[in-house]
């Protein structure tokens, strides 16, 4: 973390200097004592302004606090904690006033283009040796990695003639998760059918414990080892730790993000839909916490994540989904290979894809060749691929078995609505109201405005 400070004369300071120049010139040329005195009276405030701005930012440190979990489209409030640390060399222990904070937020899209924005806030007073919190709010419409920083703090107090800027180069990252929707009845059916006659075996509770779930009162049959002594001592009655009962309902989710690449700046809606669906499903599966969960992500950077489905792993999985980027479909064979290698027979495999499968006969197609060779209408979305024809999987002896337990969900199909209802994505015009609300709040007294801000713009819990 590096901090740099610099001083500059503001535009108003330059106007001031021009007038001062006139005064000095007149005083010197005409030898008018009162003009000399006036020049001295004008120089003093300029020097003092510079000095006071230097003192205002001495010992000032800033720490950014990002929200832990943000989904695309959520309203967020980004906090900055400003601290003015005491200095041994400080002669006067003065508070700092009117510190304007500006944070740089950067988001890179799939093509590497960066979209930048600035978050602003003002700390009216930062007491010496104390702290103050300033915030700005925003809404991130796209999932992905957002980079915060560098942050600059500037002050021009008290006269606005000289500006002192403190630049903190520290950069923080926030991963905005995909927006989740609502899983439909088709998903429940799929889920149930996937595990009908499954190999899930209930395990004796004593032999294996699942993840810690919570506390409950002791009951007959509980193991003494599970007693939570601290809570028991506090409450006076025996309390035990409760564990997840593993059902061992393992599931694999493959996400095939293929895009035709027709969308230059905006994200491919099918890809986003697939990611949103995958995220919703991941959250749901982890919430149930019924076994192992395998997530295979296609796209530009294929990734495979394996772990026990639990709320603790949700964040990691959703983060992987958040940064996933589409490709032209080259990663599908890899995904299928992953499923062949990592899943046990009988484990349901759900493949979420942005293209229809099976589609046009692609006999002889090399799996890594771009699908643009196929005769596909330009507006038909990503080209279809007959997965049965892929060499990689066709020759694998385990393929027929996998094929039986493979469930394909094409996000572009007409039946998608049964599976999944995406959440309503707020638009820019909503933020016009967001802004108008802010403008209306300006007219209120300070305390009321704060309450309005907090109540209206509270992020979804």
């Amino acid at each position, binding site marked *: 973390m590096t901090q740099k400070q610099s001083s500059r004369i503001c535009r108003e300071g330059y*106007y001031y200097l021009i007038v001062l120049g*006139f005064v000095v010139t*007149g005083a010197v040329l005409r*030898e*008018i*004592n*009162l*003009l*000399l*005195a*006036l*020049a*001295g*009276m004008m*120089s*003093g*405030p300029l020097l*003092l302004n510079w000095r006071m701005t230097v003192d205002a930012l001495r010992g000032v440190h800033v720490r950014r606090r990002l929200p832990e979990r943000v989904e695309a489209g959520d309203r967020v409030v980004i906090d900055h904690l400003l601290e003015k640390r005491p200095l041994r*060399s400080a002669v006067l222990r003065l508070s700092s*006033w*009117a510190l*304007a904070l500006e944070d740089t*937020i950067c988001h*890179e*899209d799939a093509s*590497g283009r960066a979209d930048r*924005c*600035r978050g*602003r*806030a*003002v700390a*009216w*007073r930062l007491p010496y040796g104390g702290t103050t919190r300033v915030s*700005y709010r*925003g*809404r*991130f*419409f*796209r999932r992905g990695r*957002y*980079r915060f920083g560098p942050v600059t703090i500037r002050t021009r107090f*008290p*006269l*606005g*003639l000289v500006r002192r800027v403190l630049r903190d180069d520290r*950069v923080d990252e926030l991963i905005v998760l995909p927006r989740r929707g609502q899983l439909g009845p088709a998903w429940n059916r799929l889920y149930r059918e996937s595990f009908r006659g499954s190999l899930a075996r209930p395990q004796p509770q004593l032999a294996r414990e699942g993840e810690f779930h919570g506390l409950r009162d002791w009951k007959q049959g509980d193991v003494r080892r599970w007693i939570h002594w601290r809570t028991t001592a506090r409450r006076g009655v025996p309390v035990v730790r409760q564990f997840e009962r593993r059902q061992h309902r393992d599931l694999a989710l493959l996400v095939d993000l293929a895009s035709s690449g027709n969308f230059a*700046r*905006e994200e491919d809606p099918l890809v986003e839909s697939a990611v949103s669906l995958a995220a919703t499903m991941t959250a749901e599966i982890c919430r149930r916490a019924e076994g192992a969960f395998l997530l295979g992500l296609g796209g530009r950077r294929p990734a495979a994540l394996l772990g026990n489905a639990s709320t603790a792993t949700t964040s990691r999985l959703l983060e992987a989904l958040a940064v996933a980027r589409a490709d032209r479909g080259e990663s599908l064979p890899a995904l299928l290979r992953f499923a062949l290698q990592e899943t046990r027979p009988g484990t349901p495999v759900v493949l979420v894809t942005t293209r229809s499968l099976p589609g046009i006969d692609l006999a002889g197609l090399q799996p890594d060749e771009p699908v643009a060779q196929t005769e596909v209408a330009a507006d038909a979305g990503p080209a279809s691929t007959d997965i049965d024809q892929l060499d990689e999987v066709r020759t694998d002896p385990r393929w027929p078995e996998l094929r039986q337990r493979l469930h394909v969900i094409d996000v572009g199909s007409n039946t998608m609505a049964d599976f999944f209802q995406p959440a309503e994505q707020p638009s*820019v015009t909503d*933020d016009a109201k967001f*802004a*108008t609300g*802010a*403008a209306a709040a*300006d007219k*209120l*007294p*300070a305390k009321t*405005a704060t309450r309005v*801000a907090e109540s209206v713009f509270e992020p979804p819990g």
Partner: protein
Amino acid sequence: MSVERLFQICVATLATLGTLLFGIGQQNVTLPLLSAAAAATSIYVTDIRGWLRLNRFVANLGALLAVTIALIDFFNFDRGNQLLALANLLVYLQVILLFQQKDERTYWQLLMLSLLQVMVASALNFGLLFGVLLVVYLLIALVALALFLLLRESHALRPERSPQDRGVWESLLGGFGPRRATRMVVEPLPAAVTVKDVLPAVGGSAAVQCLLTIGLTTLFFFIIPRTGQKQLIASAPTAQRIVGFSDTVELGELGRAFQSTRDVMNVRFFDEAQQLLTVQGTLLFRGTVLENYDISGGRSRWTRTKSSHAATQHGGPDLDPQFAAALRPSGKSVIQDTTLEPLRREKTVFFVYPAVTEGDLRVSWSASRDQLERKPPVRSKLRLELTTYGFDQQQRQIVQRRVNPVMQRLTAPRLQALTRLPRGPGGEDPFPRLRAEAARVLEDAAKEAAMQRGADEGFSRLEKARLLEDYFLFDPRFAYSLDGQDRGRRLDPVEQFIAEKPIGHCEYFASALTLMLRSQEIPARVVVGFKADRSNSYGGFFAIEQRHAHSWVEVYLRPDDVPSRLRTEATQLYGAWLRLDPTPGGDADFGAESSIGLLTGVSELLDYSQYLWSNYVVGLDAQRQGDLIYRPLSRVGEGVSHVFTKEMWQETVPAFWKSLFDAETWRQLLVEVLTLRGFLLALLAVTLVTFTVWLLRRLVHLARGRRRRRAIQGDSRTYPVVEFYQRLEKLLAAHGLARAPTQTQHEFAVTIGGELRARGALREVAHLPKQLVEFFYRVRFGGKTLDKQQTEAVEQQLAQLAAALDQGSAGGR
């Protein structure tokens, strides 16, 4: 009250103050009143209620009209007043702006206009009140600027325009181009600030800044050297005309005599050792002498002598050497330090007779008019030092003498003129009663003296003159009044004064005494000048105003007429002038000390402040600067150089140590500090010490910082991690592929990849930059370190890239 409202009030106050400062110098109340009324009205009508808000078109029209008026004034005014036309324009523009809807730009314009007004006022205004108001202006301006800053910062937090706020054209044009999706929207949280929150900080910082600014300004003002010989005197475009003083005295005018409090001069007296002297009693400063009384055309007046005897002599010694030689040993000299205010026409210099100018070329002695005169220009202040011999001195107190030597031989015609009484139009004696009265007074006195002494010895000229003076002073018939009396046209005014209405002002008393003396063949003349009763108890100076103008009488005494106790070598040369003041309430109180009441004390304090302002601010010149700052500093410097001598340690240090325990030393030091010079030197010393301490601390801090940086640079934990990325950038930059400051590393890698792909030969290494950047991100932002394998991979990729680039460049050549 909101911050903006308070700021509007401050701006209105500044606008009014600026105009007031400007109007003070011009003694013009119209513009300040107009400005004040406009400012007060605009706050309510425009800012609070919004009833009247001039739109841009109307405001521009108004400004155009104001400029036109100003231009007309500019070409109509004389050269000295053209600046006023421009200053008036500032006021008009200010009034127009006050009634506009105010935004940041308007506020700035109002502030700048008021500052420009102060700038113009500084060139035209010299009074003490200007200085006081300037400090008030400074304080309010500092508060206003602070509030303006807070206002601008809170405006900067307002949300940007929403899509609904876009204009028609923007909306139309926006529909034709590709619509860019917005990935994020970020806005500040509304953060209102109230006056209550910030007023302590704003007020406190303004007060501190004001004090520090005044201190810095004082130092800056007094230290900047003034240029050599030329006096830094602010020239007054409207020099004052002395109404109280005139080189003619006209009698018989009706109406009350005008008493103006305009300053004429400030005077102090020093001995040869530059110690300030205290004057006992009243002082009379001689101006011009009027020897000729004319009655013509129904008017009676005194004028200067018509004699053209002796040419004017310039420079000095301005008197004949014989007299100068006789004058000096005869009495102790006193230095009269005078600062004369600028005059329009009058070139008379007022002094305590007799005095010499010690070779000052700016003044000259006019032998014909028997007065001291200044050379042109008369429109600027003049500071003079004269050596006067008109005092008797007892320690630090001086008393003005009544008998002083004549400075040049009086010729017979001149003496004759001093005893001449005019004749009426028909040749009759216009002063029968006056003559009779004079004779009666002397006769009565003679009889009384004869009765007391037992013999009629007769009176000397001096005694006769004193008797006639006492007649006016002690006769209850006579009364002093400034009101003009209707004296009719039948008698000469002086005759009428004696015979019928003995009420009048000093000119009547002086005229009557002079004519009475002349009726007794005693040479006498009227002298016009200034009279001072009391010096300022704070500064020890005499502040002479126009209302102190006075007339008295001088009687010529032959050398034999001078009493033996008053004879000097100089009086024996050409005789002496006996000064008489017949006006009741004249200089009869020698040694009287008057107590100072509260009001008088305040008045004197104001006079002293005005004196300091005139002499050490407006009138600061090279000479005063030397006396105040540079000579004491050089003495300090000499003292410092003596520190390293043996004598210093053997003699001075013990004496210094002893003086530390002496109360008198501390008392004198306190007195010295309380003087202006002492205050300035103390301020300079404090500033130097503070600056030295600050410099030392800064040097220590820098040294510590350098040491800390060296320690950090020795820590190799951070650098190797991103070092490979720096090498990558350097390598690419060497081949013309530099990263733009606005590009992220990832953007840069993608761009470079495309560039390399486009160059067919480098297609194979196009993916390397991205991979290297991935490693960089992992380390820089992910907080991870590279293991051995990854480090090797990085080195390998860098080498591969370097080789390919070199090959590509060589091929290109």
